[in-house]
C-alpha cells in the first residue's frame, strides 16, 4: 500500500526542478533577447542556451517517475 509520502516526494522532485528551470530560463531569456536584439546572428546559440535548463525539469520528471514507479 503506497502512502501519501510517495506522491508528495514525486511532487517535490518535479516542482523544484520546474521552478529552477523557470528561474534560469527567465534570466537567460532576458539576456538572450538583449543579445539577439544587438546581434541577430547569435539567435541559434541563444536558443540552445535557453534550452539547457530544460534538462533540470526533465531530471525532476525522471526522479518523480522513478519515485512513483519504484517505491512500492
Amino acid at each position, binding site marked *: 500500500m503506497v502512502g501519501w509520502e510517495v506522491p508528495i516526494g514525486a511532487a517535490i522532485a518535479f516542482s523544484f526542478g520546474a521552478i529552477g528551470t523557470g528561474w534560469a530560463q527567465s*534570466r*537567460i531569456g*532576458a*539576456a*538572450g*533577447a*538583449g*543579445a539577439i*536584439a*544587438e*546581434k541577430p546572428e547569435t539567435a541559434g546559440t541563444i536558443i540552445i542556451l535557453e534550452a539547457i535548463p530544460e534538462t533540470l525539469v526533465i531530471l525532476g520528471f525522471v526522479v518523480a517517475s522513478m519515485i512513483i514507479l519504484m517505491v512500492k
Partner: protein
Amino acid sequence: MDWGYINARIRGMKSRLLDHRTLDNLILQPDMDSLIAELEKTAYREDLIEAKGKYTGVTAVEYALRNNFVRTFRKVLDFSKEKEARLYISIFLHRWDVQNIKTILRGKNIHVTNEEIVDCLVPVGELDEATLTELVRQPDVKAVIDLLATWDIRWARPLTTAFPEFAKSGDLGMLECALDRFYYNDALQAVSAKGADNAKIRQVLSLEVDVVNIKTILRMVRDRIAPEDAQKFLLEGGQALDEKMIARVLVLPTIAEAAAMLSTTWYPTLHPTRYRFLATIPEDVLRAQKISVIEKQLERHLVREGVDSFLGDPLSVASLIGYFWAKYNEITNIRIISRCKTADFPVENLREELVYV
C-alpha cells in the same frame, strides 16, 4: 533589478566599438577623405553619409560623431525601461545638459553667433534640440537663465543663485562652478540610498569630483589664488582630498610640489595614492607650469577607471558605466585623429594623444 537584458545589449554594442587595429588604421590614413572612407566601414557609416550631405571634411566627421553619440545614448535610454536603470543613465546624460548650458552661456558671454553655438551642442540629455535652440536664441546670459527659470528647468536654480556674483565680477566661472556643484550634489543625492549599484555610481562620481578638484587646485596654485577662496571653486563629494589635504596643497609655491603631494598620502605614512602618476610627470612640464599636460593625464586616468568598470559584476550598473566611458573615449579619439589629419600632425605624435583602453 534585472540587469541581464541591459547588460547583454550593452555588451553587444561594446563589440561594435573600434578596436586598436582599426584606430591604428585610421591614424595611418594620409588625408581627410581617406579617413572618412575608412570610417564609413565602421558603425559610423550611417551618420557619416547623413553628415556628408550637409558638410565636408572635419566638420562632417564632427557632425557625424555628435549625431552618433546622441543616437547611441537615446537608444540606451529607450531600451532601459526600469526606473532604477533610467535614473543611472540620466545621471550620466545630465552632464551633457550641464555642458550644453555652459556652451550657450559661454557663447552668449563672448557674443558668438547662434549658428556657432548650435554646432557645439550635444542634445543627448534632458534638454532636447528644440529647447536648446530656443535657449540659443536668447540675447544674453541673463535671458538664458530667465528662460530656464520660466520653464522650471532644474539648472536654473544654481544659475539664478550665482547670477548676482557673475553680474558683479563678470566671471563666467562663477556660473559654471555653481552648475557643476549642483550637478554633482544632485547626482550624489539621487544615489545616496544603500545598494551595490548606488555605491558604484557614487564611487564614479566621487572620482570625477576628485579629478575636477585636483585640476582646480593645480590652477589655483599656478595662479596663486588665496587658499581662503578655495571653497568658492572646489566641489563637494570627493573622496581623495579632505580639507586638511587641500589646505596643505594650496599653500605650496609650485605645481611640481603640489603634484608630488597629491601623489602620496600623509597619514598614517607616506604611500602612493591612485594619483601616483602625478609624480611621474616630467620635470620640465611641471617647471613650465603646463597644466594641460597634467589635465590630460587626469582625464586618461578617469577614462581608464571608467572603462575598467567592464571588469565589475556583469549583473550590475558596471557595464553601463564602462560603455559610457568607452564610447566617450572612442569619439574623443576619432575627433583627435580627424583634427590632427587636418593639421598634418605627425603620425608618431598622434598615437601619444590617443587613449587606448
